[in-house]
């Protein structure tokens, strides 16, 4: 555009004359222009490269984000699966059935010890399997009771634990009569817990059962 505007006044000029020093002026201004153009090009290039890098970084970040979101979804899913197994194992149906399978019955004659008054309330009597006091196996339907405790595995684990504990006690008595009770106990406890866990895994068929049994099957472990 500037070229077009320059033409007009040129054509309207009455006469032409030599302008002194024009060449010198052109020479003086040519170099800075070239430098400016170079600077401009370099700047633009730098901006373009920077933009490209930024874009790359952002898009890879987006893909990373998508990946992390997918991972989060997977983890939430497995947490939900495990939670449902725990819910199933801690359902009244499961606990009652497991307790019954292990031979536990409720005692209709509770006895209370009043520690402060040193008194016993009630008359101690053994729990009996009376027709009236005993409730038969689970009668309450539950379609969500999908993960179950296996009584035989619990029994196996408990007896393994008991055997181990007996063995530990016997060993400590036989080999080291000076061993204190405190040094024996932790060893047997650790042993029994490991044993119990191994017992379950060994008998379990699926990963779901393992999860359940580890939570549901060791309530009595630390005491003998």
């Amino acid at each position: 555009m500037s070229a077009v505007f320059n033409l007009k006044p040129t054509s309207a000029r009455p006469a032409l004359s030599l302008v002194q020093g024009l060449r010198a002026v052109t020479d003086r201004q040519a170099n800075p222009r070239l430098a400016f153009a170079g600077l401009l090009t370099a700047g633009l290039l730098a901006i373009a490269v920077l933009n490209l890098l930024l874009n790359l970084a952002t898009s890879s970040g987006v893909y990373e984000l998508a990946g992390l979101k997918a991972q989060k979804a997977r983890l939430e899913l497995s947490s939900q699966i495990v939670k449902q197994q725990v819910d199933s194992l801690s359902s009244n149906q499961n606990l009652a059935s497991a307790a019954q399978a292990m031979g536990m019955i409720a005692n209709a004659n509770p006895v209370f010890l009043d520690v402060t008054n040193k008194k016993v309330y009630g008359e101690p009597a053994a729990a009996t399997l009376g027709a009236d006091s005993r409730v038969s196996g689970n009668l309450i339907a539950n379609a969500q009771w999908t993960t179950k405790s296996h009584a035989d595995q619990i029994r196996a684990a408990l007896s393994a634990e008991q055997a181990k504990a007996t063995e530990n006690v016997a060993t400590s008595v036989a080999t080291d009569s000076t061993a204190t009770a405190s040094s024996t106990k932790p060893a047997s406890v650790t042993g029994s817990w490991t044993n119990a866990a191994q017992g379950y895994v060994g008998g379990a068929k699926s990963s779901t059962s393992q999860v359940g049994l580890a939570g549901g099957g060791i309530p009595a472990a630390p005491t003998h």
Partner: protein
Amino acid sequence: MRNRAPSLEALRLRRLMAGIAVLAVIFGLRLVQFQIIQAPQINAESLARRSITTTVPAMRGDIVDANGKILATTVMSYDINVDPTMVKPFNAKVNGVDTTISVDQAANELAAILGMDPVEVMKKLQGTSHYSQVAKQVDGSTYVKVKNLDIPWVFPQQVPKRIYPNGALAGNLLGFVGTEGQPLEGLEVSENKCLAGVDGSETYQRGVDGIKIPGSADVKVAPKNGGTLKLTIDSDLQYYAQQVMAKYVRNERADWGSAIVVEAKTGKILAAAEAPSVDPNNYSAVDAGNRSSRIFRVTFEPGSTVKMVTAATAIDQGVATPLTHVLAPQTSYVANNFRISDSHMHGLEKLTLQGILIESSNTGIIQIGIKSPYATRVKYWKNFGLGSRTAVNFPGEASGIIHETAPDGASVYTSMFGQAMTITPMQSAFVYQTFANLGVRLSPKLLDTCTAADGTVTQVQKAQTATRVLKTSTARQIISMLEGDVAQKGGVGSTAAIPGYRIGGKSGTAQIANDNGVGYGLLHAISFIGMAPAEDPQYVLAVTIYKPRTVSNSMGATPPFKAILEQVLRTYRVPPSTTKSPIIPATW
């Protein structure tokens, strides 16, 4: 200079300039049209092509028991959908080797995982539609197995699913929701306001690869999850009571049975067990009649348990005491020769009011009841909560019927022993709560709090009301007579005794009116309602068994009463009584 004709060169230049100017104007106008006039429309169209809106489902709130144990919750489940137009063999890596999987093979694998018939699965894979549902709402572990098959034409879709981890435990109270999550029954319906959430949405712009375009706007409307509803129910006790009732309803071949445990001094319902019960996870497995709460909805003529109300009215009015003497014949004739008989054969008996209650004598109680005018008795019934719905306001709750004026001469008398009126099992429990709480009836409390997703806690039921029905002294005399009913030999009550504890209670063997309204059938509604420990009543238990076929009197209701009450005493660590029940003479 101005008059000089422009040179050819200049003329061309001008034309070029004019052309450029015209083009510039055209471009400019078009630009204005696109950028300003049509801009919103174009933007919207473009956004619609790139953007995608997904619903972020809100999770329905949990229902928990008094101890926070989850009775109902919402989890993600998965619909297994297929695009039948895409169904064809595909390549998948099996043990690291690329293998072609045929459609048959894929269908067989799907069927094995989903527990379906392969033929049925195959049918669902055929067709020209883009959508076919193979399985609905499968759980997370099944979904993982399906996903691991890597079938390119299977599209699982996430959908929230309501589950009840304890199955039929309190199922009759909880109710259930439909497959689309819509509440259908019980507390799921009545407490929907607390439980329901508001779905959110997420809108973002995605590229061809389905990944969000970097830097594009992401509009999220967060879902509002539902609140947590806390009940007063103790789920362990509820389970035990349901087990006991299921056993006795089965053994006695009854239509149904219910057991309600109430904390006497707070009006909290600790257990409301029914048999048969409904597993809300699978409600279609039981008959429609067994899917709701009979404890709140069914009314029946209560029978002899109402004799305590008649006795309490008379004592409170000062017209009788536990020692009031009557001569009770086997049969009496009232109001135009209407015959009233006792259920067991006996001669003329010299009974006190205590004796009347132990023997559950109809001919005896009418001699006590007639001492109070009918209108006075109606006033007491109302104060006991009969004839009106409870504060729980359970969906479909019945009010029962009491007559303001006696419909006929005979009903003035029959209402003294629980005929010519109907009540719900819940109302009957709170009549005895009134006795146990020394004359003050509290409104039943089943719903405790609603904790919203933001943590705000609100009381679900209105403030509890306390109605003074009886003088404290009257209530104490009634409790003593209830104790006598259990502690003294001779009546049904003695079979409800628990060694070591002072128990008070009263039996009822009510006739059931025929469906046509004429006369009574051969089957009964048997009940036993009582409290423990009687020296300072803490817990009230009401057991009802409807139409037992192997027993015909309330002897069928005392064994479950005893079993559940023993569990109540164990659960709440109630020490055995240190004193003996008072003995009020039954005869004179």
